[in-house]
């Protein structure tokens, strides 16, 4: 639906590129392997941060404050003498878990909403679509900020705010796809064969309607990671002393002139994680798009 099928292009231009992509997928892909390995390592750190043998991320030692990277503190210490490496490693847990939970909220609310709008009569569809329009009229992080303004900061509210702002994205795609699928022959056949409406929807519409959700969710995961860090940076997410990467950058900004390592390492960790997620999402998207359209 999104793009013109390559075969429709004049003179068959562009077919070659698609073909090459297909061949590329069969080869062993070093970027994909590196990405997967990095994400697996991150998950290990999330589940079991103690496995790395780092110090307590909250243990302060004012006598060793603002020390540059050394053998004792590989990434240096912050303004309270806490080990930056330990804080970066323990911070992975916040970013990953909050992003996962927020994406789950977006899917759990967005997919049924999209399916309902796609199957419903035109007036209900109109109402639901307008509602999504209204929800997405608040740009970027602003909806999340407004929600947090009323609910207060904290990880639960952060998840809810980020999740709600991602609902329209899932709902829109599922709605559009449902509309395509419900007109397909096999759905008609199912209805003709006398299958209950519930069964037709669950077995013959839903699986096709949610085909794009894993890709959307992967990209959304990266977005939620960035969003959670941004909200923590402006003090609306997790508050210090929790070693959240955004919050660490916020504290580190004040010491940038004397201790760059407080900001740079959590920043690098954040970029690497999101880069890995987006790389994975982009590969998945290519795979999805190179498949035969419905």
């Amino acid at each position, binding site marked *: 639906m999104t793009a013109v099928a390559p075969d429709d*292009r*004049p*003179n068959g*231009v*562009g077919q070659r590129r698609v073909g090459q992509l297909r061949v590329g997928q069969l080869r062993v892909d070093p970027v994909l392997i590196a990405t997967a390995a990095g994400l697996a390592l991150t998950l290990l750190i999330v589940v079991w941060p103690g496995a790395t043998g780092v110090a307590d991320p909250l243990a302060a030692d004012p006598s060793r404050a603002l020390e540059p990277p050394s053998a004792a503190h590989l990434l240096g210490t912050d303004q309270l003498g806490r080990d930056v490496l330990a804080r970066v490693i323990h911070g992975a847990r916040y970013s990953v878990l909050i992003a996962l939970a927020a994406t789950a909220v977006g899917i759990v609310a967005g997919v049924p909403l999209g399916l309902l709008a796609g199957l419903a009569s035109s007036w209900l569809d109109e109402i639901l679509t*307008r*509602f999504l*329009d*209204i*929800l997405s*009229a*608040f*740009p*970027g*992080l*602003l909806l999340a*900020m*407004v929600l*947090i*303004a*009323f*609910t207060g900061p904290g990880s639960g509210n952060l998840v809810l705010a980020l999740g709600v702002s991602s609902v329209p994205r899932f709902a829109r795609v599922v709605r559009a796809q449902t509309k395509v699928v419900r007109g397909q022959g096999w759905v008609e056949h199912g209805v003709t064969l006398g299958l209950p409406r519930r069964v037709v929807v669950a077995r013959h519409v839903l699986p096709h309607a949610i085909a794009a959700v894993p890709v959307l969710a992967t990209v959304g995961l*990266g977005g939620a990671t*960035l969003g959670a*860090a*941004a909200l923590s*940076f*402006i*003090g*609306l997410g997790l508050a210090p002393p929790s070693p959240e990467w*955004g919050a660490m*950058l*916020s504290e*580190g*900004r004040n010491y*940038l*002139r004397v201790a*760059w390592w407080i*900001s*740079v390492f959590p*920043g690098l960790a*954040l*970029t690497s994680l*999101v*880069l890995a997620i*987006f*790389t994975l999402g*982009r590969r998945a998207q290519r795979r999805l798009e190179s498949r035969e359209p419905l």
Partner: protein
Amino acid sequence: MIRGLAAEAILGPVVSVSRRLGSLVLVLWGTVTLTFFAVHAAPGDIVRLLIGQGHDTPEVRAVIAAEWGLDRPLLVQYAGYLGRLLHGDLGTSYVLKRPVTEVIGAQLASTVELAVTATALAALLTILITTLTAGRRLLTRLAGAGELLLASTPEFWVGILLLFVFSFTLPWFPVAGAGDLSALVLPSLTLALGAVGGLAPVLRDGLERALEQPFALTVRSRGVSDLGLRVRHGLRHASIPTLNLAGFAVGNLLGGAVIVEQVFGRPGIGQVALRAISSKDIPTILGVALLAAFVFVVVSTVVDLLSLVIDPRLVGAAS
């Protein structure tokens, strides 16, 4: 037949424009309604907030509630809010006890300056990068990697990096504040880079598609240079999807401005919003949110209409 076509040529744009304007009004009304009722359903005692340090007695509560119109039925309050909104009145700040329009208006210029500069910078960078790299394998891969890196790096972290390099290590730009032009460079660059990461891949993709089409060959055979083909013919064909995304990015700038203003200690709407959120100053929060939604909806409408100008074929498709 011909008369019918002529009527469509005139009516088509009129119909699509009025449909767009109709849905614009609807979405704006929806945002106002949603935020209004969300605020009143949200936990938290507005009267308690307004009393502040004063004594919380039933008598004081009654006086305050009457003064702010909070004792009237919700629907009456809603009608009053809508009515005042139509006159451009966003209510009175609970904390500053001044009209919200005044609070926002005092800071608006700084944010507009930032957003406009960032938009221009983002457009310039995107067009420059894509025109130079589209269809060239190695350059495309390099630029693509850079764009993915930009998209994976949040604005506040880009801002801190720029501060570190260009203000602390190389003392080229001031660390904080606003005023002269040099204080605008790093904040607007930060905002622009975030947008470039999303826009450039889309524009390049469109440009590559356009260069593969038969008309590109025709233009080339007329002896037009490669650069001329890209700039004068390719970009126009490639611009529609990018324009839609750009409208989205411009609408998002206000959200990004909150972050960037915080990083660079710049005054602006973002700082107003953050102060309002931390002090639960509901009218101000709503004012900023509605302003952002308004900008967002207006920009996306303008983008839709602009698409019709760029590609007149869309007029028929829309009506």
